[in-house]
Protein backbone atom coordinates (compact mmCIF):
# COMPACT_ATOMS: atom_id res chain seq x y z
CA UNK A 1 0.00 0.00 0.00
CA UNK A 2 1.96 2.96 -1.29
CA UNK A 3 -0.85 5.20 -2.44
CA UNK A 4 -4.34 5.80 -1.15
CA UNK A 5 -7.37 7.86 -2.04
CA UNK A 6 -7.80 11.13 -0.17
CA UNK A 7 -10.98 13.18 0.00
CA UNK A 8 -11.07 16.91 -0.50
CA UNK A 9 -13.96 17.53 1.87
CA UNK A 10 -14.88 20.93 0.50
CA UNK A 11 -15.63 19.34 -2.87
CA UNK A 12 -17.43 16.20 -1.68
CA UNK A 13 -21.23 16.40 -2.00
CA UNK A 14 -21.86 13.00 -0.42
CA UNK A 15 -23.32 11.45 -3.58
CA UNK A 16 -21.81 8.07 -2.58
CA UNK A 17 -20.86 7.08 -6.12
CA UNK A 18 -17.36 6.24 -4.93
CA UNK A 19 -18.73 3.87 -2.30
CA UNK A 20 -20.47 1.92 -5.05
CA UNK A 21 -17.31 1.78 -7.17
CA UNK A 22 -14.75 0.65 -4.61
CA UNK A 23 -13.88 -3.06 -4.88
CA UNK A 24 -12.74 -3.17 -1.29
CA UNK A 25 -15.11 -3.43 1.65
CA UNK A 26 -15.36 -1.01 4.55
CA UNK A 27 -12.91 1.42 2.93
CA UNK A 28 -15.09 4.42 2.10
CA UNK A 29 -17.53 5.30 4.85
CA UNK A 30 -20.40 7.74 4.66
CA UNK A 31 -20.51 10.36 7.38
CA UNK A 32 -24.25 10.91 7.72
CA UNK A 33 -23.99 14.08 9.78
CA UNK A 34 -21.68 15.91 7.38
CA UNK A 35 -22.96 14.23 4.19
CA UNK A 36 -19.38 13.51 3.16
CA UNK A 37 -17.27 10.41 2.68
CA UNK A 38 -14.18 9.29 4.52
CA UNK A 39 -11.48 6.90 3.26
CA UNK A 40 -9.75 4.43 5.55
CA UNK A 41 -6.26 4.67 4.04
CA UNK A 42 -5.10 1.55 5.83
CA UNK A 43 -7.59 -0.51 3.81
CA UNK A 44 -7.39 1.34 0.49
CA UNK A 45 -5.52 -0.46 -2.32
CA UNK A 46 -5.04 2.69 -4.35
CA UNK A 47 -6.77 1.35 -7.45
CA UNK A 48 -8.22 4.76 -8.37
CA UNK A 49 -11.72 3.59 -9.31
CA UNK A 50 -13.28 6.01 -6.84
CA UNK A 51 -11.24 8.83 -8.37
CA UNK A 52 -12.47 7.85 -11.84
CA UNK A 53 -16.16 7.98 -10.88
CA UNK A 54 -16.24 11.07 -8.66
CA UNK A 55 -18.18 13.76 -10.56
CA UNK A 56 -16.79 16.56 -8.37
CA UNK A 57 -13.10 15.64 -8.55
CA UNK A 58 -13.14 15.40 -4.78
CA UNK A 59 -10.93 12.32 -4.69
CA UNK A 60 -7.30 11.92 -5.66
CA UNK A 61 -4.65 9.29 -5.18
CA UNK A 62 -1.78 10.41 -3.00
CA UNK A 63 1.43 8.70 -2.14
CA UNK A 64 1.55 7.66 1.48
CA UNK A 65 4.34 9.13 3.51
CA UNK A 66 6.21 7.68 6.43
CA UNK A 67 3.99 9.52 8.85
CA UNK A 68 0.79 7.82 7.65
CA UNK A 69 -0.83 5.59 10.24
CA UNK A 70 0.90 2.23 10.22
CA UNK A 71 -1.12 -0.92 9.53
CA UNK A 72 -2.07 -2.50 12.80
Amino acid at each position, binding site marked *: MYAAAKVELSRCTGCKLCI*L*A*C*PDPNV*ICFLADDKK*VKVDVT*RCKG*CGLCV*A*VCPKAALALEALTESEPART
Partner: protein
Amino acid sequence: MTKQMFRIAPGFEEIMPQEYRDLVTHGPYDRNVGVADLGTFKELLEEHPLCAGCGLALSLRLFLASLPAPADTVVVGSTGCSAIAFPQVGLHNIHGLFGNQNAIASGLKRALKLRFPDQPKDVVVVAGDGATADIGLEMVMHSWFRGENIATVMLDNEAYANTGGQESGMSPRGTVLNMAPTGKKFEKVAMPEIAREAGCAYVATTSPLHARRFEKAIRRAILVARDVGSTYVQVFCPCPTNYKFRPDETLSVIRKREKEGVFQYREYITPQAQEYLAAVEGEKQ
Protein backbone atom coordinates in the same frame (compact mmCIF):
# COMPACT_ATOMS: atom_id res chain seq x y z
CA MET B 1 -27.61 -18.87 10.84
CA THR B 2 -28.95 -16.20 13.10
CA LYS B 3 -27.29 -13.15 14.51
CA GLN B 4 -27.30 -15.06 17.78
CA MET B 5 -24.37 -17.13 16.52
CA PHE B 6 -22.24 -14.04 16.16
CA ARG B 7 -22.86 -12.70 19.64
CA ILE B 8 -19.81 -12.58 21.78
CA ALA B 9 -19.98 -14.36 25.13
CA PRO B 10 -20.21 -11.74 27.89
CA GLY B 11 -16.80 -10.78 29.22
CA PHE B 12 -14.99 -11.65 26.00
CA GLU B 13 -15.80 -8.48 24.04
CA GLU B 14 -12.43 -6.94 24.80
CA ILE B 15 -10.37 -9.73 23.31
CA MET B 16 -12.34 -10.08 20.08
CA PRO B 17 -10.92 -8.23 17.06
CA GLN B 18 -12.51 -4.87 16.31
CA GLU B 19 -13.73 -6.14 12.92
CA TYR B 20 -15.68 -8.92 14.60
CA ARG B 21 -17.20 -6.59 17.15
CA ASP B 22 -18.23 -4.24 14.36
CA LEU B 23 -19.94 -7.10 12.58
CA VAL B 24 -21.95 -7.92 15.70
CA THR B 25 -22.90 -4.35 16.51
CA HIS B 26 -23.56 -2.95 13.06
CA GLY B 27 -23.46 -5.75 10.53
CA PRO B 28 -26.32 -6.30 8.08
CA TYR B 29 -27.97 -9.31 9.76
CA ASP B 30 -31.65 -8.99 10.51
CA ARG B 31 -31.64 -5.47 9.12
CA ASN B 32 -33.13 -4.32 5.92
CA VAL B 33 -30.06 -2.88 4.22
CA GLY B 34 -29.15 -2.79 0.54
CA VAL B 35 -26.50 -1.38 -1.77
CA ALA B 36 -27.76 2.16 -1.18
CA ASP B 37 -26.73 1.76 2.46
CA LEU B 38 -23.15 0.72 1.70
CA GLY B 39 -20.72 2.85 3.64
CA THR B 40 -23.06 3.02 6.62
CA PHE B 41 -22.89 -0.55 7.96
CA LYS B 42 -20.17 -3.12 8.53
CA GLU B 43 -19.97 -5.21 5.38
CA LEU B 44 -20.01 -8.99 5.39
CA LEU B 45 -16.84 -9.07 3.34
CA GLU B 46 -13.66 -8.32 5.26
CA GLU B 47 -10.43 -7.07 3.70
CA HIS B 48 -9.61 -9.52 0.90
CA PRO B 49 -6.59 -10.47 -1.18
CA LEU B 50 -8.11 -9.83 -4.63
CA CYS B 51 -6.27 -7.44 -6.93
CA ALA B 52 -6.60 -3.66 -6.79
CA GLY B 53 -9.44 -2.56 -9.08
CA CYS B 54 -10.89 -6.08 -9.39
CA GLY B 55 -14.37 -6.04 -10.94
CA LEU B 56 -15.13 -9.38 -9.35
CA ALA B 57 -14.34 -8.04 -5.88
CA LEU B 58 -16.65 -5.08 -6.47
CA SER B 59 -19.38 -7.46 -7.63
CA LEU B 60 -18.93 -9.59 -4.54
CA ARG B 61 -19.32 -6.52 -2.32
CA LEU B 62 -22.49 -5.52 -4.11
CA PHE B 63 -23.78 -9.09 -4.10
CA LEU B 64 -23.38 -9.42 -0.34
CA ALA B 65 -25.17 -6.12 0.20
CA SER B 66 -28.02 -7.25 -2.08
CA LEU B 67 -28.96 -10.41 -0.18
CA PRO B 68 -32.60 -10.27 0.92
CA ALA B 69 -31.92 -12.32 4.07
CA PRO B 70 -28.20 -12.67 4.85
CA ALA B 71 -28.83 -14.43 8.15
CA ASP B 72 -30.71 -17.18 6.27
CA THR B 73 -28.43 -17.51 3.27
CA VAL B 74 -25.83 -20.12 2.42
CA VAL B 75 -23.45 -19.44 -0.44
CA VAL B 76 -21.87 -22.31 -2.33
CA GLY B 77 -18.70 -21.27 -4.11
CA SER B 78 -16.16 -22.87 -6.35
CA THR B 79 -12.51 -22.62 -7.27
CA GLY B 80 -11.51 -19.26 -8.72
CA CYS B 81 -10.70 -15.73 -7.65
CA SER B 82 -13.94 -15.43 -5.66
CA ALA B 83 -12.93 -18.47 -3.60
CA ILE B 84 -9.94 -16.52 -2.28
CA ALA B 85 -12.29 -13.92 -0.81
CA PHE B 86 -14.84 -16.28 0.73
CA PRO B 87 -12.83 -17.16 3.82
CA GLN B 88 -13.25 -13.47 4.65
CA VAL B 89 -17.05 -13.49 4.35
CA GLY B 90 -19.22 -13.46 7.48
CA LEU B 91 -21.82 -15.78 6.03
CA HIS B 92 -22.25 -19.54 5.86
CA ASN B 93 -20.37 -20.58 2.77
CA ILE B 94 -19.21 -23.83 1.32
CA HIS B 95 -16.37 -24.30 -1.11
CA GLY B 96 -17.32 -26.89 -3.71
CA LEU B 97 -14.91 -28.84 -5.84
CA PHE B 98 -14.18 -27.22 -9.15
CA GLY B 99 -17.48 -27.77 -10.97
CA ASN B 100 -19.82 -29.56 -8.55
CA GLN B 101 -21.14 -26.41 -6.86
CA ASN B 102 -24.68 -26.72 -8.23
CA ALA B 103 -24.91 -30.36 -7.15
CA ILE B 104 -23.86 -29.41 -3.62
CA ALA B 105 -26.32 -26.53 -3.59
CA SER B 106 -29.17 -28.81 -4.78
CA GLY B 107 -28.65 -31.28 -1.96
CA LEU B 108 -28.19 -28.54 0.59
CA LYS B 109 -31.37 -26.77 -0.43
CA ARG B 110 -33.39 -29.98 -0.23
CA ALA B 111 -32.01 -30.74 3.23
CA LEU B 112 -32.73 -27.20 4.45
CA LYS B 113 -36.31 -27.45 3.19
CA LEU B 114 -36.81 -30.58 5.28
CA ARG B 115 -35.05 -29.18 8.33
CA PHE B 116 -36.68 -25.73 8.24
CA PRO B 117 -40.05 -26.21 6.52
CA ASP B 118 -41.39 -22.87 7.75
CA GLN B 119 -38.35 -20.69 7.26
CA PRO B 120 -37.04 -19.93 3.76
CA LYS B 121 -33.32 -20.60 3.50
CA ASP B 122 -31.67 -19.13 0.43
CA VAL B 123 -29.02 -21.22 -1.25
CA VAL B 124 -27.00 -19.23 -3.76
CA VAL B 125 -24.20 -20.50 -5.94
CA VAL B 126 -21.52 -17.92 -6.62
CA ALA B 127 -18.88 -19.19 -9.00
CA GLY B 128 -16.68 -17.97 -11.79
CA ASP B 129 -17.11 -18.43 -15.51
CA GLY B 130 -14.74 -21.40 -15.60
CA ALA B 131 -16.61 -23.28 -12.89
CA THR B 132 -20.02 -22.44 -14.33
CA ALA B 133 -19.69 -22.54 -18.12
CA ASP B 134 -16.80 -24.98 -18.56
CA ILE B 135 -15.90 -27.37 -15.80
CA GLY B 136 -19.27 -27.41 -14.03
CA LEU B 137 -21.58 -26.95 -16.98
CA GLU B 138 -23.08 -30.41 -16.76
CA MET B 139 -23.98 -30.14 -13.09
CA VAL B 140 -25.13 -26.55 -13.51
CA MET B 141 -27.47 -27.53 -16.35
CA HIS B 142 -28.82 -30.59 -14.59
CA SER B 143 -29.72 -28.50 -11.55
CA TRP B 144 -31.68 -26.27 -13.94
CA PHE B 145 -33.36 -29.22 -15.68
CA ARG B 146 -34.50 -30.44 -12.27
CA GLY B 147 -35.77 -26.97 -11.39
CA GLU B 148 -33.89 -26.88 -8.09
CA ASN B 149 -34.79 -23.93 -5.90
CA ILE B 150 -31.35 -22.37 -6.07
CA ALA B 151 -29.96 -19.17 -7.56
CA THR B 152 -26.79 -19.42 -9.65
CA VAL B 153 -24.64 -16.31 -9.97
CA MET B 154 -21.75 -16.37 -12.41
CA LEU B 155 -18.99 -13.83 -11.79
CA ASP B 156 -17.81 -13.57 -15.36
CA ASN B 157 -14.28 -12.20 -15.53
CA GLU B 158 -13.88 -13.93 -18.89
CA ALA B 159 -10.80 -15.95 -17.92
CA TYR B 160 -9.19 -18.39 -15.54
CA ALA B 161 -7.74 -15.46 -13.72
CA ASN B 162 -5.90 -16.73 -10.67
CA THR B 163 -3.91 -19.35 -12.54
CA GLY B 164 -2.11 -16.93 -14.79
CA GLY B 165 -4.76 -16.23 -17.42
CA GLN B 166 -6.13 -19.08 -19.53
CA GLU B 167 -9.13 -18.53 -21.81
CA SER B 168 -12.48 -19.82 -20.61
CA GLY B 169 -15.60 -20.57 -22.60
CA MET B 170 -16.74 -17.09 -21.59
CA SER B 171 -13.75 -15.22 -23.04
CA PRO B 172 -14.77 -13.33 -26.18
CA ARG B 173 -13.55 -14.67 -29.54
CA GLY B 174 -10.01 -13.53 -30.30
CA THR B 175 -9.04 -12.97 -26.66
CA VAL B 176 -5.31 -13.18 -26.12
CA LEU B 177 -4.15 -13.83 -22.58
CA ASN B 178 -0.82 -14.76 -21.00
CA MET B 179 -1.61 -18.43 -21.36
CA ALA B 180 -3.81 -18.18 -24.44
CA PRO B 181 -1.31 -16.65 -26.83
CA THR B 182 -2.92 -17.65 -30.12
CA GLY B 183 -6.31 -16.08 -29.41
CA LYS B 184 -9.62 -17.73 -28.57
CA LYS B 185 -11.17 -19.47 -31.54
CA PHE B 186 -14.87 -19.44 -30.71
CA GLU B 187 -17.55 -17.10 -29.36
CA LYS B 188 -18.53 -16.56 -25.73
CA VAL B 189 -20.75 -19.43 -24.58
CA ALA B 190 -24.38 -18.30 -24.71
CA MET B 191 -25.09 -19.05 -21.07
CA PRO B 192 -28.19 -16.86 -20.62
CA GLU B 193 -29.84 -18.61 -23.57
CA ILE B 194 -28.79 -22.00 -22.23
CA ALA B 195 -30.25 -21.09 -18.84
CA ARG B 196 -33.53 -20.07 -20.37
CA GLU B 197 -33.83 -23.21 -22.49
CA ALA B 198 -32.81 -25.37 -19.54
CA GLY B 199 -35.84 -24.12 -17.64
CA CYS B 200 -34.66 -21.25 -15.44
CA ALA B 201 -37.56 -19.14 -14.23
CA TYR B 202 -35.47 -15.99 -14.04
CA VAL B 203 -32.36 -15.09 -16.06
CA ALA B 204 -30.50 -11.77 -16.02
CA THR B 205 -27.23 -10.30 -17.21
CA THR B 206 -25.84 -7.42 -15.20
CA SER B 207 -22.65 -5.66 -14.11
CA PRO B 208 -21.36 -3.74 -11.09
CA LEU B 209 -21.41 -0.50 -13.11
CA HIS B 210 -25.06 0.04 -12.17
CA ALA B 211 -25.32 -0.95 -8.54
CA ARG B 212 -29.11 -0.60 -8.23
CA ARG B 213 -29.79 -2.65 -11.32
CA PHE B 214 -27.30 -5.23 -10.06
CA GLU B 215 -29.07 -5.41 -6.71
CA LYS B 216 -32.45 -5.82 -8.36
CA ALA B 217 -31.25 -8.77 -10.45
CA ILE B 218 -29.69 -10.53 -7.46
CA ARG B 219 -32.73 -10.01 -5.25
CA ARG B 220 -35.11 -11.17 -7.93
CA ALA B 221 -33.03 -14.26 -8.64
CA ILE B 222 -32.96 -15.21 -4.97
CA LEU B 223 -36.66 -14.54 -4.39
CA VAL B 224 -37.78 -16.45 -7.48
CA ALA B 225 -35.51 -19.35 -6.50
CA ARG B 226 -37.29 -19.57 -3.14
CA ASP B 227 -40.67 -20.41 -4.56
CA VAL B 228 -40.66 -20.83 -8.31
CA GLY B 229 -37.53 -22.59 -9.56
CA SER B 230 -33.93 -22.25 -10.70
CA THR B 231 -32.55 -18.82 -11.55
CA TYR B 232 -29.39 -17.50 -13.17
CA VAL B 233 -27.59 -14.15 -13.04
CA GLN B 234 -24.51 -13.48 -15.15
CA VAL B 235 -22.33 -10.66 -13.88
CA PHE B 236 -19.82 -9.08 -16.24
CA CYS B 237 -16.88 -8.15 -14.02
CA PRO B 238 -13.71 -7.41 -15.95
CA CYS B 239 -10.28 -8.41 -14.66
CA PRO B 240 -7.57 -5.72 -14.93
CA THR B 241 -4.78 -8.12 -14.03
CA ASN B 242 -5.29 -10.55 -16.92
CA TYR B 243 -6.82 -8.22 -19.48
CA LYS B 244 -4.01 -5.76 -18.87
CA PHE B 245 -5.84 -2.54 -18.32
CA ARG B 246 -5.27 -0.12 -15.48
CA PRO B 247 -7.11 -0.89 -12.23
CA ASP B 248 -8.97 2.43 -12.39
CA GLU B 249 -10.43 1.47 -15.79
CA THR B 250 -12.54 -1.50 -14.68
CA LEU B 251 -15.81 0.40 -14.82
CA SER B 252 -14.96 2.25 -18.01
CA VAL B 253 -14.23 -1.11 -19.68
CA ILE B 254 -17.82 -2.14 -18.87
CA ARG B 255 -19.14 1.18 -20.15
CA LYS B 256 -17.21 0.76 -23.39
CA ARG B 257 -18.57 -2.73 -23.96
CA GLU B 258 -22.06 -1.41 -23.22
CA LYS B 259 -21.65 1.38 -25.78
CA GLU B 260 -20.39 -1.03 -28.41
CA GLY B 261 -23.47 -3.15 -27.78
CA VAL B 262 -21.30 -6.18 -27.04
CA PHE B 263 -22.51 -6.30 -23.47
CA GLN B 264 -26.22 -5.91 -22.89
CA TYR B 265 -28.38 -5.91 -19.81
CA ARG B 266 -31.07 -8.50 -20.27
CA GLU B 267 -33.76 -10.00 -18.14
CA TYR B 268 -35.95 -13.00 -18.87
CA ILE B 269 -38.79 -13.85 -16.50
CA THR B 270 -41.30 -16.66 -16.96
CA PRO B 271 -44.97 -15.66 -16.54
CA GLN B 272 -45.08 -17.65 -13.31
CA ALA B 273 -42.04 -15.87 -11.91
CA GLN B 274 -43.46 -12.56 -13.08
CA GLU B 275 -46.64 -13.19 -11.16
CA TYR B 276 -44.68 -14.18 -8.08
CA LEU B 277 -42.44 -11.11 -8.26
CA ALA B 278 -45.41 -8.80 -8.74
CA ALA B 279 -46.85 -10.22 -5.53
CA VAL B 280 -43.68 -10.05 -3.39
CA GLU B 281 -42.40 -6.75 -4.75
CA GLY B 282 -45.86 -5.23 -4.39
CA GLU B 283 -45.96 -6.42 -0.80
CA LYS B 284 -42.79 -4.52 0.04
CA GLN B 285 -44.08 -1.16 -1.17
